[in-house]
């Protein structure tokens, strides 16, 4: 079994609103002191792939479309247990454009040995378009199963649990599909050991450019995309919080109930 996992390097989503700064001209967040990490749902997807590998035996290839520094994300994935890593070089703007990203990733996946399963995160955790998995499925002509907390091999294909508007549903699909992964108790990403991190630093990373994928430069640039970001700004929030007084927790609790009754909330 061959599993491809698409991961994206993003600005740490956990940084506090106070530390968060933007460059309005570039229409991007400033990295400042924040670290670059793998998107949280991409980590869940990696964990799912590695668990499948441990259970059934599989080769796991991680791919990313991004700048040179996205190699760090690939190294982290190798340390978690991925076997091979592919960096498709692109500038930051192009790799934020979902339609371009999907085209580029599809071309890269077609160059790999045949893939049984393509895993993505449900959304990047940065611009959160939530589009690449669906676009990729269309590019590759494969079915999409989105919002999957867990899946397993079943017969010749896969058995997947997915979230839907009517609660969770179990589906079956043949080999050859794109899946977007959502977080669950059982796909919390593992922390690689120091030894695995050191080993991963010695593994090769395959680097491809647009030309290697048979794409011309222009079609792999942001201007070929379908979106144009006009502005990025920090919205204003006006807090109207009334702090409940009291000498201790119990008194605060009593005063809270009083306030809720006054406001006719309870």
């Amino acid at each position, binding site marked *: 079994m061959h599993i491809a996992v698409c991961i994206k390097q993003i600005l740490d989503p956990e940084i506090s609103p106070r530390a*968060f700064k933007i460059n309005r001209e570039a229409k991007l967040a400033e990295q400042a002191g924040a670290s670059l990490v793998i998107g949280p749902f991409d980590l869940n997807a990696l964990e799912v792939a590695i668990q499948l590998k441990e259970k059934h035996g599989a080769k796991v290839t991680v791919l990313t479309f991004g700048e040179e520094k996205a190699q760090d994300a690939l190294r982290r994935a190798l340390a978690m247990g991925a076997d091979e890593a592919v960096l498709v070089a692109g500038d930051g703007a192009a790799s934020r454009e979902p339609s371009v990203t999907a085209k580029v990733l599809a071309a890269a996946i077609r160059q790999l040995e045949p893939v049984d399963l393509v895993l993505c995160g449900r959304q990047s955790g940065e611009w959160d378009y939530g*589009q690449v998995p669906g676009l990729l499925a269309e590019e590759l002509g494969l079915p999409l199963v989105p919002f999957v907390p867990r899946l397993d091999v079943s017969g010749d294909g896969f058995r997947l649990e997915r979230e839907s508007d009517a609660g969770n549903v179990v589906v079956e699909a043949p080999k050859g599909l794109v899946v977007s992964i959502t977080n669950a108790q059982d796909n919390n990403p593992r922390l690689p050991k120091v030894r695995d991190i050191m080993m991963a630093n010695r593994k090769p990373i395959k680097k491809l450019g647009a030309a290697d994928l048979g794409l011309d430069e222009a079609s792999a640039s942001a201007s070929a995309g379908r979106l144009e970001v006009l502005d990025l700004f920090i919205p204003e929030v006006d807090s109207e919080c*009334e702090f409940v007084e009291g000498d201790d927790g119990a008194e605060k609790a009593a005063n809270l109930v009083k306030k809720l009754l006054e406001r006719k909330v309870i």
Partner: protein
Amino acid sequence: MNVIVLAWGGDGSAPTGPVQELLGAARRLAGAGGGSVVAAAFGPAAGAARSLIEYGADRVLTVEHDALAAADADAYVDAAEAVCKHVGDAVVLIPGDRLGWETAPRLAHRLDAGLVTDAIDVAVEDGRVVATKPVYGGKAHAKIAMRGASQAVLVRARTQAPLAPDAGRSGEIEAFAFEPGPNAGRVRVVEYKHEDTGDEVRLEEAKVVVSGGRGLGGPEPFQQLAEIAGLLGGAVGASLAAVDAGWVPASMQIGQTGKSVAPDLYIAVGISGASQHVAGISGAKTIVAINKDAEAPIFRVAHLGVVADYKDVLPALAEELRRVKG
């Protein structure tokens, strides 16, 4: 410009809340650009055709097929593609539920349309449709325009004002013949799982929601939350961190990637108030935060704040509620 609203869900008597909102937004867009509003009503929603007109559609295309009753997304993508190609270049507005998120990118690919997901606002500026969406977990907002003759916007629920239904509005209703493509049914449903949250009140419909986060430190304090929720006739929710810690099932997660709730009262205990969490409670009328850190961002959205260790507050809160409710 013409605007197409994808309408699904509901029991066929009236459009769902999110579809009513899309019709309101569609009228405003069409009004600014001088076009008409076409609603595509799929599956069971076709029964609400007349009501779609009352809420703002000029024309309704009803699309019915067995494959749509089964909520097979492959079939929905095929159906939406067929209707949109029939209507021609337009701005397509899509509900922000899971079916919408699943359908939208695939539809956009087939229409060669730009797509903005999770829009909280959509307007015409300098002749272009511009959608505003939260990015970086809501810490910033981006205004995005779409390129191409066909454009699509997936709109977050509870962000658009619906129009008051007007029984006097007129419009056309037309049945649209549709056959799913060869790919429909590649993914087969084998089981519907029923959520067992242990709650009698469904989280999405609860009037009171008491949620816990990482600050609770373990699964046990959720019992206390359940007791308080029980006293108020409410349900218990959680943050992603509490779900990932394995303390509660994912069905209890509230936020951008969990459930959206709109209770009269939301009590957040030991939750920092990350924007991704807060995205799920924008419909809450009164928000109470209990957190030991006075600087926690949750206090920026809370109406009533209690700065304290939850361990010192919850027992007294339960007792006090028993007293006033008993």
